[in-house]
Structure formats: structure tokens, C-alpha cells
């Protein structure tokens, strides 16, 4: 851990895992949706379900969905902000199998009709891990600039993705591939050392076999 993971983050209390991490989960779900959410079904698992209301986990998740970051002083009032900005929401407790105790599943619908289901857990200190997107297992934190590409699971697509980034001189730190079934859909997730330029994001969706491109900027850039 670097020293700014020891001191910090600046955050709205009371809990870095149940509040700050929850805001980041909501925020990440919004990013993955890629547009303004209008409806959200939120499921809470484990300790999120058991102690979430006292920790403001519900309000924190909503705040993130509304685009707030962990230090936003409007977090306690996010239910109201959601009403005002036309975000319908519901909460329920669930019991997931093999999930981290601080886990939430957010099914989110956007203004333009997109829909995504994100499962993520809060690891402590405000850090999170995205575990699933639309039922496909993934594993990334969003701490580094991250590119998430939903593509058809067929030969050649990965090479195209890598080439697009290589030509932009972006150094890939980690690259992971996840798929639901052979020949179905896959997620290619690349964490990079430097931020990925708009050009790459613009170019990628036009390539064959690529369905959706999501870019998550690094902490610094935000």
C-alpha cells in the first residue's frame, strides 16, 4: 500500500468499506452503464445487508450512481437527490453464494435504454473490486485507467483491441479475458499505466466484433 492508501481518502463517513467503497461501487456501475441511470435495482449481500442502513450503504450506492464521489457532502441526502433527478430505485437483501461479505449487485437502466448488471465488493479502505458484469465473472478495481471491451468471442478481436492501443502508445499493465461460453460474448479488460485517449475509444467500436467500449479514467484524471 502506498502512503496515500494509509492516510486518506477524504470521504464522507462513517465507514471506508460500507460508505466510501459503496459510493465507488455505485460510481463504477454508472461508468459501466455509460450513461445517466434512470432506474436501479440494488441488492445487498452479507454485511452490506446486515449493517448497511446504519452505515448509509444504501445512500452511498445511490450517490455513486448519481455520479458523486466518496467525499461528496450530498451523500447523506442522495435519496432526495435521486428523486429530484429522476432516478427510480429499490433495495433488497440477498444471499449470494461465494461472495465477499461486502457485496452489492446493481442492475441499472439508462436514459438511452442501456442496461447493465454489475456485482462488486468493497475490500476496505475505500477500495473495491468489480466481480461480475452481466453475469460474466470479471475482476478489476478501477484504480488504474481501465478499458472494458465487450466483444464477440471469436478469433482476431483481441489482436484488434491490442493493436488499437499499441498504435496509441498506451502501455497495458494487465490484460484479462472473460467469457460466458465459447463463441458467446466476452469481456476484455485492460488496465493501463497511462490514460487511454479519446481516439482509441472512438476507433474501437467501429471494429468488427466489438459491441461496447467503456473507459474508466484513473483517480488523478477525474
Amino acid at each position, binding site marked *: *500500500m502506498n502512503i*496515500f492508501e*494509509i*492516510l486518506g481518502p*477524504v470521504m*464522507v*463517513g*462513517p465507514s*471506508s468499506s460500507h460508505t466510501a467503497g459503496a459510493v465507488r461501487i455505485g460510481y463504477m456501475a454508472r461508468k459501466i452503464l455509460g450513461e445517466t441511470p434512470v432506474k436501479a435495482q440494488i441488492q445487498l449481500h452479507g454485511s452490506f445487508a446486515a449493517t448497511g442502513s446504519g452505515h448509509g450503504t444504501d445512500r452511498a450506492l445511490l450517490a455513486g450512481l448519481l455520479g458523486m464521489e466518496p*467525499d461528496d457532502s450530498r451523500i447523506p441526502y442522495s435519496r432526495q437527490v435521486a428523486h429530484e433527478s429522476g432516478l427510480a430505485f429499490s433495495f433488497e437483501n440477498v444471499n449470494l453464494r461465494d461472495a465477499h461479505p461486502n457485496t452489492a449487485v446493481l442492475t441499472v437502466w439508462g436514459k438511452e435504454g442501456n442496461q447493465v448488471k454489475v456485482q462488486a465488493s468493497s475490500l476496505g479502505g475505500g477500495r473495491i473490486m468489480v466481480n461480475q458484469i452481466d453475469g460474466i465473472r470479471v475482476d478489476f478495481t478501477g484504480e488504474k485507467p481501465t478499458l472494458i471491451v465487450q466483444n464477440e468471442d471469436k478469433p482476431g478481436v483481441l489482436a484488434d483491441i491490442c493493436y488499437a492501443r499499441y498504435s496509441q502508445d498506451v502501455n497495458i499493465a494487465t490484460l484479462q479475458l472473460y467469457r460466458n461460453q465459447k463463441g458467446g460474448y466476452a469481456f476484455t479488460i485492460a488496465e493501463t499505466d497511462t490514460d487511454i485517449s479519446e481516439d482509441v475509444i472512438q476507433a474501437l467500436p467501429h471494429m468488427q466484433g466489438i459491441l461496447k467500449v467503456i473507459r474508466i479514467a484513473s483517480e488523478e484524471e477525474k
Partner: protein
Amino acid sequence: MAFHSLEQICRLCREENKNFYQVILEDDMQEREASAEASHAKMSQLWQAMVQADRDYDPTLRSASGLSGCDGGRAAAYYASADSYCGDFIGEVVTRAIQMAESNACMRRIVAAPTAGSCGVLPAVLIPCAHRYQLSDQQVEEALYVAAGIGQVIASRAFIAGATGGCQAEIGSASAMAAGALAYLKGGNEEVICHAVAIALKALLGLVCDPVAGLVEVPCVKRNVIGAVNAMTAADQALAGIQSFIPVDQVIDAMREVGEKMASSLRETGLGGLAATPKGMEVTL
């Protein structure tokens, strides 16, 4: 590369003739590929956020559960008017620790140091010291580097979260970090800093994490007080030349061992200790 022992930091201090703060700063610059200015700018933001959070305390707020709030105002009034046992200076430390921890419980903006539950400890000692000794922001920030470096070693050798190591890992770590920072501010060298850390951590060894209803409120708010006051007495002891018999890295290892042996009911599950008392069990969400 992050340090795994305080001994390693001390060795660098000796060999390169640098002080504790410089060693941590340079390591951060290397680790995050940042300039000294960029690193300091980040630290300065944290310090300013602590000062702001302290200023923003609202004595009328209560937490959603109703378990905390308003005691910061009580403490302030008492120390201002009564002839207290602790006196003005410690009184200020106590007051600020309660206030910051209450702000956290009431969903106000705070700085996790190292965690949200223990966010009151460092500002509770640093803000009154900054007033009393007229410290510049630069001096306080240097002390925060010292604190962060200590926390980093504790995180690497043991843990800094109640869920993994009990409250000794949270309030204990915060207190040890604050003790080291205080020793540094009074000119203590790396050895004095290490003794301050060891003395502070030993005093809180074994402290369990038993928050009522799993909320960061009871006993957390008041534990910030003991974390802060313990840091002051530990720093004073070390500055007086009193040494810890057990070397600091071994104290941290002992904390790890104790934490690993703690039952899970005593590690932030809200199932044991104070949380499991009849009164504690009355609290439902």
C-alpha cells in the same frame, strides 16, 4: 517499494543521513513516480481536509442510529468552564477526537487515518499542537509523512482494519502513527520515533473490535479519545528517553499474532464484546 520494517527506515536514516520524513517522502516519490511537489500537494490536501473537517463539526447533529452526536459540544463546554483533571491542552485533544469521530458517525466529510473509524486520532493531536507550537503547514505535513510511513509498515507486517485485526489494528495503529508524528514534531530522531510507536502500540495491544450493531459509533467515538491521549503519553515517554524493551517491529508482529488469534466475533462483526451485551443487543436497525 514500501517499507516492511521500521528498522529498514531507521537504517536508511542512518546510512543516508536523512530524517524519517525525508525517507518516506523519497520512497513515495519513487513508488508513485511523483515529484516532491506533487507528493506534498497531496499531503497538503489531506491536512487541509482534516482542518476543514474539524472546523465543520456541528454539535447539534446526531447519527442516523441515534447512538452518537452532541458529545463534542459537551466536552468543549466542560473544558472551557470547569476545572478538569486533564487541563486545557489535553482537554482540547479529547474534545477534537470526539468531535471528529462524531462527524464521521454523522456522515460528514473526514479523512480516513488510517481508517474512517479512527479518523479522530491524528487530527485530535495535530491540530492543538499546531496552535500551541505555532507549527507551519509544512511542519505538520512532514509529521503526516512520518505517520503514514509508520502506518505503511504496520499494514505490511500486520493489519490496519478492525475486521482483520481488531481495534488494536485500527485505533492502535492510528495511535502509534500519531505518537511517531508527535515525537518527530518535537525533534525526536528515528529511534525516538520508533520507541514512541512501540510504547503506543503496546498500550493498546489486544483491543478488540466490538461495535454495537456493527456501527462505527459505540465504542468507536470514545476510543478515538484514548488513541489520541495514548499517543501523547507515548510520545512524551519516548522524548523523555524511556525506551520500549521490545523492539517496535516485534511489537507489530505481536499485534499481528494477537489479531490472528482473535475470535471473529471480536473483529467488526458486531457479535461479541460490547456488541453482545444486553444493552448493545437492544440496538437494532
